[in-house]
Each structure stands twice: as C-alpha cells, then as structure tokens.
C-alpha cells in the first residue's frame, strides 16, 4: 500500500485524497438522511455537475496562469440567453451551428477579459469584477426584459441533456454528463501532454522565469482567457438545454461556485499547479454537499449557505492536511531509505578500507 502511494505523483495523491473526502461525505449523509444512497443520487449529481464541470475547467485554465475569471457567471448567462434567442428566432438551426455560436460568443467575452489582463496589464481580479457587472448589464439591456421560454426551443435541444446513453441499475449516464466529462478529459490530456499547454503552468509558477525562457506570456494568458470563455460558452449552451427558461438572472453566482470547485479540487489559487480532473472532483464535492444539505432536516433554509461554507472549508482543510501527512510520510520514508543506503555504502567503503 505505502509503496503504491510512493509511486503516485502529488497531483494523483491529491485526487486520491479528494475521493476519500467524497466517500466520507457520502457516508456521513447516508447516516443522517434516510434513503440517501441510491442511483437517483448519482443521476441528480451527475446532471447538475455537468455544467459546473465545464465552468470549473474554464476557471482552472485561468487560475493556473495566476489569474482569475469572475465574469464566468455573467458570460454563461449572456451566452445562454443569446443562444436561446438565436434558436427561438431560427428554429431550424442545427446543433453544430448552435454550439459554435455559443462557444464563439463565450470566446469573445474571454478575449475582452484576456486583452485587458494580458495587454493592458490590469489585474485580472479587477478586470473580471468589472466585466462581471458589465456582461450582466449587457444581458439586461440585450434581453429587453424578455425571457427565453422552453416552449420556444426545439425538441432535440431540450431533450439532449437527459438522453440516457447507458444505464447501470438505477444509475443513468446522461448525454450532458458524458459530454462534460469527455471535455474535461480532453482538456486534461491537452494540459498534460501538449507542450503549448505546459506554458500555462510555467507562467503560473513563475512569470519572470517563463518570460526569460522565451515564453510569450501575454499571448499565453490571452489564449487562456479565450479558451476559458469558450468553455463557459459551451456551459451556457448546456445551461440553456437543461433549464430552458432563461431570464436575466441566469447563471448568477456561478463564478464563485466555479472558483470554489477549482480550489476544492486542489487547483492552487496562486497559479502554477492543479488539474482539471481535480476541478471536476471539486465540482462533484461542492454539488454533493449542496444537494445533500437540502435533504438534511437539521439544517434550515437560512443556515444552508453557512453550513455549505463551513463544509467546503473543512473539506479543503482535510484535503490539505491529508496531503501534508501523505507527503511528510513519503518524505520520511525516502529519508529513511536514503539513510539506509548511505549506511550501506558507508559500510561497504569501510569494509573496502579494512581490506
């Protein structure tokens, strides 16, 4: 067992720790909530996490470069509305065009953020705090106080998220969830295998060193924001398909949830490290806690947010503590191994000296 732990890299260890926390949360709630663990719970969490997984992935791309995107909730709201409005007025448009429109629009918002952060050198927290309000106001203006209604959307769009691709007992693997997980895996492979994507980590760990190493930091940060915008746009498309009714409040507050999911998922808020698989698990954990709390009789409506906050802090703390323990244990073992090796070598040289 310990041998296996030694072989894992720190990121894999973190994911393992997160999985343990998810299991702990499941066990805890199954003790206090009757009729809790069943296929239905899986369906609930997987359906609702599909959107958050995309947003957490988008957020992770930006956070890795030592930035943050607070405008993600407004972006998803605007894209969901605009895409809904496009399909309402042109019901014959196909899925490809619609998804491309959503992602293109999101990328455009990302480009605005990216340009201001990368080229105008304004701190991202300030830029995106501004665009958070700006994009939302643009939506209020654009929507002309109308809303998008499910009744005006084509059938394929509305039924897409809940299409069951395959079923295992009560557990259903639905299209939206599977699509989101595929996107996360794709981004994960890109981040770990592609040379260009490694630049994001380089910039996040040490911007000056990255610059010295010949990385075009401005361009890379800009691209990170554009990609995040495109992913948020895809999230907007999924949001439209899932909820159907889009008003100007759509996606309100999702930016903070996406940050929470990323950070809980082990993405370092100071940049340079983190995985999108972790962010996906973080999204699962936050959603799991949120959904389960609603069913926990002990916690009233008004305390839920507070309890959610405490539980997120606890899970992050547990995760950090577990990580530290595991790392310390590993270091101790490596230390002992090294000592033993030195002792051995010393012994052999001594023997050699004696001869």
């Amino acid at each position, binding site marked *: 067992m310990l041998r296996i732990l030694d072989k894992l890299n720190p990121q894999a260890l973190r994911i393992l720790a997160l999985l343990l926390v998810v299991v702990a949360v499941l066990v805890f709630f199954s003790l206090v909530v009757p*009729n809790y663990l069943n296929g*239905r*719970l899986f*369906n*609930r969490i997987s359906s*609702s996490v599909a959107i958050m997984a995309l947003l957490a992935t988008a957020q992770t791309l930006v956070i890795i470069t030592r930035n943050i995107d607070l405008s993600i909730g407004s972006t998803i709201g605007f894209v969901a509305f605009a895409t809904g409005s496009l399909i309402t007025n042109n019901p014959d448009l196909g899925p490809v065009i619609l998804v491309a429109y959503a992602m293109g629009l999101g990328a455009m918002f990302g480009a605005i953020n990216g340009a201001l952060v990368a080229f105008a050198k304004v701190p991202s927290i300030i830029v995106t705090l501004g665009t958070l309000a700006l994009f*939302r*106001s643009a*939506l*209020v203006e654009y*929507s002309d*106080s*109308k*809303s998008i*209604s*499910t*009744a005006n959307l084509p059938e394929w769009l509305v039924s897409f*998220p*809940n299409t069951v691709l395959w079923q295992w007992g009560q557990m259903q693997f639905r299209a939206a969830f599977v699509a989101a997980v595929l996107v996360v895996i794709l981004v994960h492979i890109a981040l770990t295998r592609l040379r260009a994507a490694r630049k994001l980590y380089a910039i996040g760990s040490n911007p000056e060193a990255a610059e010295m190493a010949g990385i075009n930091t401005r361009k890379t940060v800009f691209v990170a924001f554009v990609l995040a915008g495109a992913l948020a746009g895809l999230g907007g498309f999924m*949001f439209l398909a*899932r*909820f*159907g*009714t*889009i*008003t*100007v*409040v*759509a*996606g*309100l*507050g999702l930016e903070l949830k996406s940050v929470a999911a990323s950070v809980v998922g082990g993405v370092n808020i100071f940049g340079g490290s983190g995985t999108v698989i972790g962010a996906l698990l973080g999204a699962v954990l936050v959603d799991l806690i949120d*959904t389960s709390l*609603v*069913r926990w009789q002990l916690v009233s*409506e*008004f305390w839920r947010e507070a309890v959610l906050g405490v539980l997120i802090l606890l899970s992050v703390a547990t995760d950090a503590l577990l990580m530290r323990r595991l790392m310390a244990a590993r270091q101790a073992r490596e230390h002992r191994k090294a000592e033993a090796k030195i002792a051995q070598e010393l012994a052999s040289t001594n023997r050699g000296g004696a001869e």
Partner: protein
Amino acid sequence: MKSTKTLGLLAALMMSGASLANAQTALEGGQEADMVLLPKFLGILVFDQANEGAQEAHAELGNPGELLFVGPTPENSVAGQIEIMTTAATQGQGAVMLSNNAGDQIAPSAVAAQEAGTRVVTWDSPIPGGEGEDVFVAQVDFGSIGTVMADMAHSILGGEGQMAVLSATPDAANQNAWIASMQEALKGDKYANIELVDIVYGDDQAEVSYNRALSLVDQYPDLGVIMSPTTVGIQASAKAMQDEGLCDQVKVSGLGLPSEMVSYTMNGCAPEFALWDFRDLGYLTYYTAYGLATGQLTGDIGESFSAGRMGDFAIEEDPGRPGSKRILMGPFTVYTSENVEAAAQ
C-alpha cells in the same frame, strides 16, 4: 402630510362644486406628471407585461410627462430599488409605482420620497408595514390566493396527501403573505388530510428552483404536489418533474403564465394553476398613480374612481395589513387543460 392636504384641496377645487364626496372620479387626461414604474427587477416576463399595461394607460391618458420603466439588476434588487426610489424623489417625479422586493427596508426612502412630493403606489408586492406607501394596488385579495392554492392542491391530491411550497426569495412580501394565507386556509376541515411538509426558496432563479424541486422529491418520497406561487418556480418545477419522468407521481401547481405552462398542463405535469393579468395590473396601477400625482385623487379610504377600460375601483382598508390602504383588482383565472391553450395564444 401638509402637501398631501394641499393637493387634496386642490383636487377638490378642480372638481368644482358639483361633485360630492366619495363620488366616482373620472380621471381627466392631459395633465403632466412624470412617472416611474419600478419592478422587483428587470427581465421577468410578468413585469414586462405590467409595463405594457402602464404604457397603454399612459398613452390613453395623454400624459405629456414621461413614463420610465426602470428596475435594478436581479443580484442588486434590494439596494437597487432603494437607490431608484431615492433618485426618483430628488428628480421630483410625480409618482413611483413599486413592486417591492426590499421588505420594510425601503420604507425610509419611500417616506422621504413622499415628503418630497412624490406619490408612492405599490403594486404586485406591497411595503409590508405600509409606511411610505400611498396605496397598494392588489392584483387579487391576498387571503383568497391562499384559498385558491389550497383548493388546487385539494383537487390535484384528491383530498389527501403531502404538498410542499417552492417560493421565490425569503424576503418577497407578496409570496410570504400568500403562503401564510394558504397555511391559514389549510386549517379548514376540508383540507384536514393535506399535509404541508416543507417551504423552500428558489430565489426566482430557474436553476435554483429546478434543483430545489428535485430535492423536495428526494426528501419526501410521498410528496404529491409542489405548490409554487411564482412564475419562475412553477415552470422550473414542472420542467424538473418532466425531465426526471416524475409527473405521474408529483404534480406541480401554483401561479404561472399560460404561455409558459401550456405544454406542462397539456401533458399532465401541471394540471391546474392560476394567475391574474399583469397587463391589467400595470394599467390600473398607472391610473391610480396618475390620479394621485395630478392631485385628482387624494388617496383616502372610500374614494373611488374609474380606470378606463377596466371600470370602477375604490380605495379601501387592506384587510391583511391594518392601517394600510389598497385597491383590489381581481379576479384571477384558474387554468386547466380546458382553457390554457386559448390563453397561451
């Protein structure tokens, strides 16, 4: 207070000697008064409809002044409403028509507006304490909404079963009043076998309401109906039940828009729901506010006036809020598969 009296006196003078106290006031058009229609927030269809009604009345009365439709952004509703109220007072607007989302927190700024000579007419959702409000234009009798909702639950459940409420925000004065009146109605013998198991809040956001509706089903396996007194909540709940194939088990009811609910009513997810006409509400509110702002109405109990195409209305004491005044619009329509398609056109 003084200015109110002066205005009242002016109004009496203008109507000249022939008219009697408490007689029908026919509002005279063409007088100038700048008006502000202030919804809870922008972007929900019903508020847009109310604005259409107000614009209709504005044109009909030939008011040379301006009618502004301004509201806060949703995430900033409470603070935004207070700010707009304060601004309206400093701009010297004739009247503010407010669908209050700020509870009693808006009262100080509303009082300040009144002192500056701006009349404050609430509609859709009143100021709970009544302070700072000239009169409340009630869409329907708040007590009877409770009975209607209890009756719809009764008919859907066949007289027996569990129901849960999915409301808007915990601060919404109108929803809270309706839920309270429904709880009161449920005490009646007729509803003895109906159990209200929970009240949850979807914040008038589709995604929150959708998830809350599903968790209600998970939490109460025997739940028979979700009652949602908000147009956003009822639609999100119905969609959630439909998406999860739960419509046979859990029905959705409450207050909804026919155009948004028609498919769910026809497929049986939401067999019955109710609503009133928001265009009419905006229209009547405008007439009331215009009468007050131009001094043709004093806003006293017992005063009555005729509001264009909608006929005659009277100012009375609000039975739900002693000491406050209201104008009762009514009635509302219960929609079923029989009449929903026609209404959705």
